[in-house]
């Protein structure tokens, strides 16, 4: 019997205490902001969309190797010895032409693992976080600064250089093979001359 009234009493009081809490919250100002008109201030370390400063990129491929989802695609071409690509901001001399540098932001998981290994700090995260597109292909951003004719030109130059080098290598190898066969024909005389010189 006592249980019955106790249950009623506890029920009533706990409900009233709960109602007091909710009533108090009616007068607390809202903690939300009206988003598109008011934007929150993001902290400086926030991880948003990446940006690559191609002036500093030496084409070392460290960022592409560090990425866990393989969203960075880099293709480089060696430059001719005569070309001068300039220096990066921290003094390194660039020797590679970067012909492709695509980052697919649909795949990117925004983990920042690519930012740490970069030796020249040319890849970093910006504060752009509203970049929705209508088509999936528009999320693949191309950062390389060479134009398409220039890329084809650099690749052609490289191939020309390669073929030239191979020719030279072939010529050097042929010459060495000829010298070897020539050395096998005449063996003795040069050795005796040197022995006589040494005795004196």
């Amino acid at each position, binding site marked *: 019997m006592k249980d019955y009234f106790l249950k*009623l009493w506890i029920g009533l009081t706990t*409900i009233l205490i*709960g*109602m007091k*809490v*909710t*009533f108090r*919250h*009616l007068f*607390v*100002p*809202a*903690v*939300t902001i*009206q988003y598109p008109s008011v934007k929150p201030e993001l902290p400086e370390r926030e991880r948003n969309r990446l940006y690559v400063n191609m002036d500093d990129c030496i084409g070392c491929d460290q960022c592409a190797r560090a990425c866990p989802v393989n969203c960075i695609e880099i293709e480089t071409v060696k430059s001719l010895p005569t070309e001068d690509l300039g220096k990066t901001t921290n003094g390194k001399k660039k020797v590679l032409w970067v012909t492709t540098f695509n980052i697919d932001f649909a795949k990117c998981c925004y983990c920042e693992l690519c930012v740490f290994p970069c030796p020249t700090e040319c890849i970093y995260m910006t504060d752009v976080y509203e970049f929705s597109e209508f088509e999936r292909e528009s999320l693949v951003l191309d950062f390389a600064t060479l134009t398409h004719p220039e890329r084809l030109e650099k690749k052609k130059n490289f191939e020309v250089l390669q073929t030239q080098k191979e020719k030279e290598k072939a010529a050097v190898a042929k010459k060495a093979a000829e010298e070897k066969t020539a050395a096998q024909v005449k063996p003795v005389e040069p050795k005796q001359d040197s022995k006589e010189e040494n005795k004196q």
Partner: protein
Amino acid sequence: MMYDWLYQFTGSSILAMFIVSLLPLFVFILPFALFAVLMERKVSAHMQDRLGPMRVGYHGILQTVADIIKLLQKEDIVAAATDKNLFNLAPVLVFIGSYAAFAAIPFSGVFIGSQIELGLIYIVAVTGLVVAGILMAGWASNNKYSLLGAMRAAAQIISYEIPTLLIILTIIMITGTVSLYTLSEMQTAYFWNWLILGGPETGIQKILFIPLMMAGFLIIYISTLAEVNRTPFDIPEAESELVSGYHTEYSGMKFAMFFLAEYANMFAVSAIVSAIFFGGYQSPFGYLGSALNLPWLIPIEQFSWFTAKGLFFIFVQMWLRWTLPRFRVDQLMEFCWKYLIPMAFVILLLVGLITVL
């Protein structure tokens, strides 16, 4: 009064009756339902430290209008394996059940939909149509979840009508009338005459009544809360258990009817509770109109008091909704049959004893 004036105006009693009963529907209830939905969203938002609708209109005032337009133009999806007649009839019955109750509620001293002597009993009978509508909706949806929801709703509404009726019996014993109009007229002048504080007769009876009336008010408020399926009694529409219960399969205008009917029902029961216990449209401390000697001001004041009390009780209903978790079905039934009904009986007996002595 309105009826007499219309009768003179049109010369036909049927036309006058027709207009008088339908007038609250179009002039008062529809805009009120729009307002109530917005109020619920804003009140819940501020209780949860956020803002609610802010974009449509100033601070979101036109949000419900936008919602109704959206619901009107939605495709009316009817599942193939349903019982089409019952499916289409269910929202209509629920709608009728809620709105017909407004005919017997006094909006002010001069306007009441119909001068029926059985006011409260008519209201309780007509809200029983809602049960039939809900069962039809649950059955015709051809969905296990909806059927479960509808059965629970039916059990809940029928059980909770009993404490309501017991308290109404108590009121009959004290005041001798069931008509809401007469009840409101009785509680005139000051708030001291309100039934929650004992009623218009003075004497030792009045003092003895006060705790009994307060307990009776709590019982009837809780029972009517259960009749309109509001939390903590919203098992039939429990989102997280049955994915919306008996109105899962409805879309477009039919869903809007269920929705609006719920808010109209909320107002109806708030108005009833305030008419019985808190003086209906009477003001707690005299009328400005009689003080300034402007008799035409009095009905307007009464109407505003009526709306204010109704809105206050609706606010308390919303307050409860956003504070409490919901009951489980068997606990709900246990609460009704083991706690509310015995207490209502005890109150009935005690009030009977006191009136006799």
